[in-house]
């Protein structure tokens, strides 16, 4: 018994913290003169039990971590040795996750200019420009506002960017679909703060700037800002992590992740967009005619089978397996997910795991009997607006192959006669 446990087990003997006088005697006994004796018998009853049953385990940690036997971590994209080393791309390992809420430490990150180490006492949010009252909010002050909590996925529009390539890449699911995660976000409605500042009639856009060294900046349409955007302060119940924008980020549900500016410190109300680097260089989609789509803000309907996925091997033929995956859309709820085991010739509707939330990851499942012959597994999602996920051919026919962003075509896994799963274009 530890001293702490002993103290807890002893009732107070008088008010204000006085404890049983035997406490010290017992402590001495526990810590001292050989009172703790572990029997060493030739034939103990537990001799066939695993080691962790034969002695008490460790105490609890202040902040829990996964079992040391689990190695599931984010894939970090290798960086150039000089220069861009502080840029960070961390991909969620969906091949090893089964939920719709991504553990915060496995949430994807794209940091164009590294992760700033912000002192929340020195950080504030300034709302200015075409407003009646330019205002400054401390981090602490936002905690006193009515809170809003939403479950939403966040996806980088560069997610699946590797799939524009002519040849299918042989990589785990993190590399092809890992710039996507789901969380419960809590914060303050942006409209609430904008109303307090008093947006003037000409205010049609908001320029959001972050407090990172590169000051990532994006222009957000006012109708979005007033509709469902919010300032996120918490993720999955705890303060945002530095890689997610600590102490505050903008969150624009259903918009490409880059618009949800992290480390937010400035919101300028204007009558026009600022045409920042991140909306005139990155995050614009080059089309085959040489024009580029700009403000392609909304994320499209998409799905992927997460299990089985690339590099797994089905252990047995003529057996029933669960095909499961994720579906999501920036336009609202997922209405339907269909699965094909014959490369898209026939489709069957999968079961959706409830509750199906708008602009959130939705898990689907379907049992599948694998007879041992080669197969192509696919999923395709339909969202509540009726929009159906396109085939790869449809997407490339419409947008060419140099768009770089917003790849969202049907994804294919081949199954060979040994049960091996590989990424293919089908």
């Amino acid at each position, binding site marked *: 018994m530890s001293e702490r446990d002993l103290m807890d087990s002893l009732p107070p003997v008088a008010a204000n913290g006085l404890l049983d006088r035997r406490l010290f005697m017992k402590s001495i006994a526990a810590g001292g003169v050989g009172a703790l004796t572990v029997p060493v018998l030739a034939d103990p009853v537990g001799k066939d039990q695993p080691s962790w049953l034969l002695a008490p385990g460790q105490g609890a940690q202040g902040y829990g971590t996964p079992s040391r036997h689990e190695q599931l971590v984010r894939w970090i994209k290798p960086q150039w040795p000089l220069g861009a080393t502080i840029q960070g791309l961390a991909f969620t390992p969906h091949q090893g996750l089964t939920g719709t809420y991504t553990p915060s430490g496995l949430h994807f990150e794209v940091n164009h200019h590294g992760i700033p180490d912000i002192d929340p006492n020195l950080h504030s949010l300034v709302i200015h420009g075409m407003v009646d009252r330019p205002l400054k909010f401390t981090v602490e002050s936002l905690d006193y506002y009515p809170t809003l909590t939403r479950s939403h996925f966040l996806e980088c529009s560069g997610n699946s960017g590797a799939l524009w390539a002519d040849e299918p890449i042989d990589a785990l699911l993190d590399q092809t679909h890992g710039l996507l995660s789901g969380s419960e976000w809590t914060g303050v409605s942006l409209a609430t703060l904008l109303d307090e500042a008093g947006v003037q009639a000409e205010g049609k856009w908001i320029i959001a700037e972050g407090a990172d060294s590169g000051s990532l900046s994006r222009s957000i349409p006012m109708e979005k800002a007033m509709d469902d955007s919010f300032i996120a302060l918490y993720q999955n119940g705890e303060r945002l992590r530095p890689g997610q924008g600590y102490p505050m980020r903008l969150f624009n549900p259903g918009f490409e992740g880059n618009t949800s500016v992290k480390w937010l410190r400035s919101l300028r109300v204007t009558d026009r967009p600022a045409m920042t*680097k991140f909306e005139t260089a990155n995050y614009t989609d080059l089309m085959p005619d040489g024009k580029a789509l700009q*403000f392609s803000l909304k994320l499209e309907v998409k799905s992927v089978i997460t299990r089985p996925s690339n590099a797994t091997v089905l252990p047995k033929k003529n057996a029933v397996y669960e095909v499961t995956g994720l579906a999501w859309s920036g336009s609202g709820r997922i209405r339907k997910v269909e699965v094909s085991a014959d490369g898209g010739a026939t489709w069957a509707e999968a079961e959706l795991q409830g509750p199906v939330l708008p602009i959130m990851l939705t898990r689907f499942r379907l049992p599948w009997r694998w007879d041992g012959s080669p197969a192509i597994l696919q999923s395709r999602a339909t969202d509540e607006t009726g929009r159906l996920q396109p085939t790869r051919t449809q997407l490339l026919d419409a947008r060419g192959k140099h768009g770089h962003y917003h790849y969202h075509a049907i994804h294919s896994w081949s199954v060979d006669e040994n049960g091996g799963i590989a990424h293919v274009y089908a």
Partner: protein
Amino acid sequence: MKTEESLMYMRNWILFLTIALTTCVDGADTPELGQPASEADIEQVFWSVFPDGENLPAGSGLAVDGKALFNIYCIACHGIEGAGLTAVALVGGQGSLATDTPLKTIGSYRPYAPTIFKYIRRSMPYIAPMSLSNDDYYAVTAYLLELNGILEPGSVVNAETLPKVRMPNRDGFVNAYPKVPRKYDY
């Protein structure tokens, strides 16, 4: 109605409306903890520059000086004459956008010169942003625009001239909000 009576009637209405409005504006449903932001507060956080030049700082620069600065502060990552090294190329690619090997650089792709300046001034050199003077930032911008053949040699770059620079891909963008244009839809 007598004048006096109608006046009182109106006064009551005004009183009622004022109360109704102030309860709305003062929206008792939040604590309204925003503090007035001063000009200095705004200046500290607001770096965006608009295509028409709004928020460009004072100062000016020439490519000759920009070249010297570039070779000290930028070349390690962006390469000789901005050809690209560990960081993106800043020169070239004009005419390549509709081909099978498009090269997107500030010269071939970016539509507005002032916002290129803004990014360099606020974010570069990558390891030490905001470490040069406004004149220096105008000068490296001048150098990069000259390297791309967009400015005549010897052009003065400042808040007056930068918004007038015509970028080759000025009309290369199609708005996709709220919807991707039909032409590019499946």
